[in-house]
């Protein structure tokens, strides 16, 4: 019973802290670029401001605009309950890794329909590009899940991170798979070099273009769900590939150590994302498949090493 409560608590923690991580990421980027930047609590203020506003919807919009943001946010919350954050256990029976990634596809699916819903050109553009990119993302995901399965013989994320947290040395193939997953994170969450989340330029329109016609609380829900999705991806990346010092007992000290390590690792991962985002330009859309093909090859190599050597 205690275990289940702990799982729910850590997921709630992830949901609540997600905007803070977005704020931290912006702060790091500002620091790297040499300006002061907004407070790390700014995403919360933004959400508060948006929720207070009234809704403006397009006269072409349909039920997708009405229920889409709710389903997006509900999907993000639902998936947050399926992943280990800073506590893991070998006994948890839910948390199938395929359910997690397909559940996150719900957000992508609703987002791309929202893009088409208002009948604007930009929305369609974003939607089409999002689907295009995810077409290349899926095989990488398959390879990486297969890799993890082959390494640990389970599909349960809690169990995978439990087993991997006991690893003392990371093998070459493990690190390679981690790198491939990192590229996948950037692609699935519309970060540079695949998409630029900061601008509304036509060239960079993938994620931002789809939510162009959303306003007020709807926009808040969508922004929150994509921020939670990003943090779920990063947390998964850390807990599947680098889960050292994760707590697996119900004692206070390991949990605090694990929480501290989790925060540190998250900040390090955000720092890596920030470095990529400040030092690279966005790729042309048609060069994205090349990047993803590279990630695919890395994953495939990792799998081959694990399988045959």
């Amino acid at each position, binding site marked *: 019973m205690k275990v289940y409560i702990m799982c729910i608590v850590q997921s709630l923690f992830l949901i609540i802290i997600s905007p803070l991580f977005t704020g931290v990421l912006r702060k790091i980027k500002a620091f790297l670029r040499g300006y002061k930047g907004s407070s790390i609590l700014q995403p919360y203020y933004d959400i508060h401001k948006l929720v207070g506003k*009234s*809704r*403006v*919807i*397009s*006269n*072409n919009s*349909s*039920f997708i605009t009405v229920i889409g943001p*709710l*389903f997006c*946010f*509900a*999907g993000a*919350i*639902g*998936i947050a309950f*399926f992943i280990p954050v800073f506590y893991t256990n070998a006994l948890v*029976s*839910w*948390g*199938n890794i395929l*359910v997690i990634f*397909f559940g996150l596809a*719900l957000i*992508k*699916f609703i987002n*791309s*329909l929202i893009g*088409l*819903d*208002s*009948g*604007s*050109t930009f*929305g*369609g553009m974003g*939607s*089409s590009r999002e*689907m*295009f990119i*995810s*077409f*290349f*993302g*899926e*095989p990488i995901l*398959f*390879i990486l*899940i*297969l890799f993890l*399965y*082959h390494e640990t013989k389970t*599909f349960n994320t809690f169990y995978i991170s439990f087993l991997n947290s006991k690893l003392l040395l990371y093998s070459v193939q493990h690190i390679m798979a981690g790198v491939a997953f990192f590229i996948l994170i950037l692609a699935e969450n519309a970060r540079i070099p695949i998409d630029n989340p900061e601008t509304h330029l036509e060239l960079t329109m993938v994620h931002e273009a789809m939510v162009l*016609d959303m306003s007020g609380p*709807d926009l808040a829900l969508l922004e929150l769900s994509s921020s939670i999705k990003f943090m779920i991806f990063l947390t998964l990346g850390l807990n599947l590939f680098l889960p050292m010092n994760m707590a697996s007992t119900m004692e206070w000290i390991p949990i605090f150590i694990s929480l501290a390590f989790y925060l540190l690792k998250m900040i390090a991962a955000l720092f890596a994302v920030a470095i990529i985002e400040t030092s690279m330009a966005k790729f042309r*859309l*048609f060069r994205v498949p090349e990047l993803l093909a590279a990630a695919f090859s890395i994953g495939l190599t990792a799998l081959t090493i694990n*399988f*045959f050597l």
Partner: protein
Amino acid sequence: MIDELSLFFLILIVAVIIPIGIYSIGYLKEYSEKYSVRYIYFMTFIFIISMIGVILSRTSIAFMFFWELMSASSFFLVIIEYDKQKTIKAGIMYFIMTHISGLLLMLMFGFIFKYTGTFVFSQITNLHQALDEKQMAVIFILALAGFGAKSGLVPLHPWLPKAHPAAPSNISAMMSGVMLKIGVYGFLRIFMLFPGKLPMAVYAIVMLTGAITAIFSILNALVQDDIKRLLAYSSSENIGIIFGTIGLSMFFHYLEMSTAAGFVLTAALLHSLNHAVFKSLLFLTAGAVNSAASSKNMHDLGGLYSKMKFTAICAFVGTAAISAIPPLNGFASEFMILTSFMKDIDVVKTDYMVFVIVTCGIAFAAAGAGSMYVAVKNFGITFLGVHRGNREIDSSKITSSMKLGMGILSVYTIGFGVAAPWIVKILYRVSGAVLGFKETSTLYIGYDITIFATILLICVGILYFFFRASKDHDEIEISDTWGCGFNRLKPNMQYSSGGYSQPAMKVFGWVTGYSKEIRKSNETFHISQKVKDLIEFHIYNRIIEVTSIIAKQVSIIQHGRIQTCIVYIFVSLAVAMIIVSKYL
């Protein structure tokens, strides 16, 4: 008499046919002005009876009789709009393909008779050990080609994208939802009759055919503008996935890993059931669109939600299911299929089979993402945005019986997804019967789907209460779509169906025969996109050319007199008998 496999497919047929039947009552009203509805009902009746007959047959003669009856009645259903040149052409294509399928199956049953000396299935099972590997391989390759031609495996698929748009939508739904599954049933029946070991290459062929079908069809589906052509290619993709999964199950059976084989076969059966449900649903919504907007070309559609809300919501459910979005049924089977291509592969000791299995898994994962692309395009371009064409939309043509039919299928779609952990336990028994193992343990896939569905429902309920129901309901401001400062947005400025799939075509255009043509006339540039089915273009057209050359030569000895024709028939029969008895 009736075993688990037949019972499963019988339930599948009945469960899907009933809502389609309810839908047909309203849908065929439109046809009653021009065509004979009684004829359609009669043919549909024959069609359904013959499908059930195929499933219940216990001898190969009865099987072939009902199989041919099914082919013939479905041909007459395809050409209901007989006054259209295109329909007749598509119908003839279908007729030929379905007879090639029948011919291959006849050959297969002929070989089975030759090897075992009986037509009765129960006796064949007892005698299967008498066959050696090569004889088994002959039977399975013929079965794959014969049943594959009926189900739409590449390269025998080109009748699907022609026959489905030509037929009325309720017929397409029946053909795609149910008839293609009869092909799957047939293949499984042969597998059940001959549970022995095949050469390993046969398993690889089955799996790779499935993988190639999935990838080729989904890329072709992506570029279609006609909703029903798109759905037809997507059916072919799903059949590829089902056959590939069956191939894997057969391979595990070969390795004598009965639990793994049972899991994989359950995945294939679940996908057959789920595909029958959601594809029928999508075909029915396409039919409703066609009735109301009198077009099934996406370039003339768009914004249909405002006119036909119920249809749009049903189509949304079907779209989400085919995109494998949890907690709908498409997800349940996609989840099991991908799991089965990952699980247990480290037991496989043959290196090239590992390679085949991983390749298939990657192909099916990509096909899954591709089907989301296709489904979002289909739903988004048709129902969302602004109407592109200038035709009137008459939503009164969507009668309540049509709505009821689509509604029932939508409920199935949701129910089979949420209840998947329990459904697989039942299906596991069917796989156990097919693979011939008696295991008391049940299949456990975890209750994640149901848990996720529950959390989703609770969260959406709470959010709805906070953001939609309680406050500010009158505070919503309805305004024009934001055009980024540009205020003369026109319907044709939206993303079109061609534009939506264009990025993918820039990368995969060579698979779909994609070409762009730019013409200039009076200061205006016209850009048109063209696609063609490469297999049809390069292989079928060549065959047709050669055939017509031969036919011209043969026509010299044809005089149109019935007596000479009878002579020819008997001579060829005699020759055939000599060939068969001496050389085969």
